[in-house]
C-alpha cells in the first residue's frame, strides 16, 4: 500500500536537465537557459554545416576563380578570407562540426576507460589499485596541454593526416581526462562497496561482474554529468590549444578554430582582425555555453549554493527521489 502512494515522477520530469530547469529560479535559471541555448545553436551549426556554410572548408576557388587572400569582410565573403585564401565564415561553421566530433569521441573514450579502470580499481583494491592511483595522480599533476602534445606527437608522428587528425586529437585529449573519471568513480566505488546491498548481492551469489556493473556502477555515476560538462569545455580548449601550436588538423582535412587562430598571428600585427576574431569568438561562445550549464548544474546539486524557491515547488528533494527509485 505504502509503495502505491509514492508518486513516481513522470518520465518527462526525470529526463536530464528538466528537473534542474524546474528547480532553478532567477538569474540562476537565466544562466542555465543561456548556456543551453548556446549549446543547441552550436550543435545545430555542426549538424547543418553543409547547408549553412557558403563554401567547403577547404574550398579556395569558385566559378569566378580563386577567392584571394585576406579579403576584408563583405561581398561574397561575409567574414572575409584568411591568409591561405579560405572563406572565414565557412571555416568557422565547419569548425563546429570538428569540435563536436572531437568532444564526442574524447568524452566517450575517456568515460569508458576512466569508469572501467575506476570501477575495477576501487572494487578489487590491492596492488593494482595502488599502482593505478599513483599513475593517475601523476598524470593529473602534469600540464594537460603538454601531455596532449606528447600524445599527438606519438599518434601522428608530429603530422596529421585526414580523418586520423580528428581521432588523434580526440585520443590525445582522452588521456588527459581518464584520471578525472578514474578518481571520481573509484572513490564512489570504494564507498558503495561497503554498503549492505552490495554484501547482500554477494551473499545471494551474484558474480563480481554483476555486482560491479549492476549494483556499484549504477550508484556511482551521480557526479558524471558534471565532470562531463567540465570536460567538454576543456576538450574544446585543448583541441584549440593543440591546433594553435600546429598539432591540430590540416586545413584540407577539416576546419579547426585553433589552427586558424595560429595562422592569424601575423595578420593581427598587420591590423587584419577578421581572421582571428571570428574563430576565436566561436571558441569562447561554445566554452561559455557549456560552462554556464555545468556551473548551473553544480549550483543546483549543492543545496548551499542553490538559490531557493520562495515556496518549495517539488515535494521531494533529489536525493529522496533517488532513494525512492532505488527502493522501487
Amino acid at each position, binding site marked *: 500500500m505504502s509503495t502505491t502512494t509514492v508518486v513516481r515522477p513522470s518520465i518527462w520530469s526525470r529526463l536530464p536537465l528538466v528537473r534542474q530547469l524546474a528547480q532553478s529560479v*532567477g*538569474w540562476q535559471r*537565466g*544562466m542555465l537557459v543561456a548556456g543551453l541555448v548556446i549549446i543547441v545553436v552550436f550543435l545545430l551549426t555542426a549538424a547543418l554545416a553543409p547547408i549553412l556554410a557558403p563554401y567547403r572548408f577547404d574550398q579556395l576557388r569558385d566559378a569566378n576563380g580563386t577567392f584571394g587572400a585576406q579579403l576584408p569582410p563583405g561581398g561574397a565573403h561575409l567574414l572575409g578570407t584568411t591568409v591561405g585564401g579560405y572563406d572565414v565564415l565557412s571555416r568557422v561553421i565547419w569548425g563546429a562540426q570538428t569540435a563536436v566530433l572531437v568532444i564526442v569521441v574524447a568524452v566517450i573514450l575517456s568515460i569508458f576507460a576512466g569508469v572501467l579502470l575506476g570501477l575495477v580499481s576501487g572494487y578489487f583494491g590491492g596492488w593494482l589499485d595502488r599502482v593505478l592511483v*599513483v*599513475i593517475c*595522480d*601523476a*598524470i593529473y*599533476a*602534469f*600540464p*594537460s*596541454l*603538454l601531455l596532449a*602534445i*606528447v*600524445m599527438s*606527437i*606519438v599518434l601522428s*608522428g*608530429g603530422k596529421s593526416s585526414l580523418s586520423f587528425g580528428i581521432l588523434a586529437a580526440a585520443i590525445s585529449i582522452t588521456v588527459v581526462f581518464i584520471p578525472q573519471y578514474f578518481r571520481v568513480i573509484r572513490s564512489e566505488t570504494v564507498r558503495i562497496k561497503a554498503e549492505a546491498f552490495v554484501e547482500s548481492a554477494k551473499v545471494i551469489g551474484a558474480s563480481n561482474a554483476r555486482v560491479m556493473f549492476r549494483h556499484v556502477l549504477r550508484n556511482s555515476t551521480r557526479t558524471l554529468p558534471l565532470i562531463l560538462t567540465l570536460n567538454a*569545455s576543456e576538450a574544446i*580548449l585543448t583541441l*584549440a*590549444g593543440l591546433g*594553435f*601550436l*600546429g*598539432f591540430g588538423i590540416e586545413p584540407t582535412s577539416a576546419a579547426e578554430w*585553433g589552427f586558424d*587562430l*595560429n595562422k*592569424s*598571428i601575423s595578420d*593581427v*600585427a*598587420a*591590423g587584419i*582582425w577578421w581572421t*582571428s*576574431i571570428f574563430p*576565436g569568438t566561436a*571558441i*569562447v561562445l561554445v*566554452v*561559455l555555453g557549456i*560552462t*554556464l550549464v555545468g*556551473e548551473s548544474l553544480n549550483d543546483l546539486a549543492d543545496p*548551499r*549554493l542553490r*538559490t531557493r524557491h520562495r515556496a518549495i515547488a517539488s515535494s521531494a528533494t533529489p536525493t529522496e527521489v533517488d532513494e525512492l527509485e532505488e527502493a522501487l
Partner: protein
Amino acid sequence: MMTATAVSNAPSPGAEPAQKARSKGSGGTLGRYILIRLILIIPTVFILVSMVFILMHMIGDPITAALGGRLTPDQLADRIHAAGYDRPIWIQYFEYLGQVATGNFGTTISDNRPISEILLTYGGATLELAFYALIVAFIVGIPLGMLAAYLRDKWPDAVLRVFAILFYATPVFFAGLLLKLIFSVWLKILPVNGRASVGTELNLQLLDHPTNIYLIDAFRTGNPADVADVLTHALLPGIALGLLTAGIFLRLVRLNVIGTLGQDYVDAARSRGVGELRLVRKHAYKPALVPIITVIGLQIALLLGGAVLTETTFEWKGLGFMLVQYINARDFVAVQGIVVLLAVIVAVTNFIVDVIAALIDPRVRY
C-alpha cells in the same frame, strides 16, 4: 603496550571522525610532513619521466625523426649508432633515468645544445611570465571573488560570475591576440611582441651575469628607460595569462568564502553585530584561503600549459616558445627534455605549495 591497545581500540564503529583527528594529530610534526611529502615527489617524477620516455620512443629513434630526409641511410645509421639509439630500449631507459637523476636532460639534436643550458637561458623568461600572470590573477581574482561572495545572489554576483566564466572560456592565445589587436595595433600604445625592444635587450646582454629574468636585469642596469621598456612588453602577456587564472581564483574565492560564511563562528560574530562586509574581509576570508592555496598548486600546471600558448602568441622567448620550435624541428630529444623538466617543475611547485598550506593550517599535516 599502552599505545598498542589504544590503537586497537580506536577503530570502533561510528568513531571515524575522532579517529581521523587522532591520526592527524599524533605524529604530525611539520618536519616529518615535509620529509614524507618530499619523498612522495620521487614516484611522481619517476612515473612522469618513464611515461614521457616510453611514449616518445614509440615513434622510433629521434635521429631518423629529426634528420630523416637529409642524410643518406649510411650516415643515418652511423649517427644512430654513435648516439646509442640502436641499443635495446631498456638499456636506453635506465641510462636516461640515471642521466635525469644527475640533472642531465640530454642534448638537442637540431642545434646540439645541452637541455640544461636551454633551461638556464629560457627558464627565467617563463618564470617571469608566470610571475606577472600570478600578480594579475591575485589583483583581479581575489578581491572580485570576495565581492561576489559578499553580494551573492544579487546581480553584481551574476555579472562577476559570467566574467569569471568568460575569463576561463577565452583561450589565452585568443585573449592575447585580442589584446594585441586593441592595444598594439589599433591604439599603438604597447609593443606587439617580444620581451624587450632591441636596444634594451642589447643593454641587458652587456651585464656581467645576466639572470635572463629581464625585470631583475633591467633594474641592475640602473636605467629607468630599460625597466619601463621591459614592463611595457610584459603587460599584455601578463594580462592574457593572468586573466585565465584570475577567473579560476574568482570562482574559488567566491565558493570558499560562501562556504565559511555559513560556519557557526561567523554566525556568532554576526549575532554580535559585526557588519557583513567586515565578516567577509576579516572572518570568512582567511579560513577560505587554505583550499585556495592548495588549488594554486594545481593551477601551476595549467599556468605552465598556458605559458606555452602565451609565449607562442607574443614571441616571448621562454621554455614554451622553444618547445614549439623544437617540435616543429622534429627534435624529440629536446621535446622530451623540456617536457620532463616542466613536469619536475610542477612536482616541485606542488611540494612547495603543500608545505606552505601546512605552515598555515596545522590540520593539513599528516
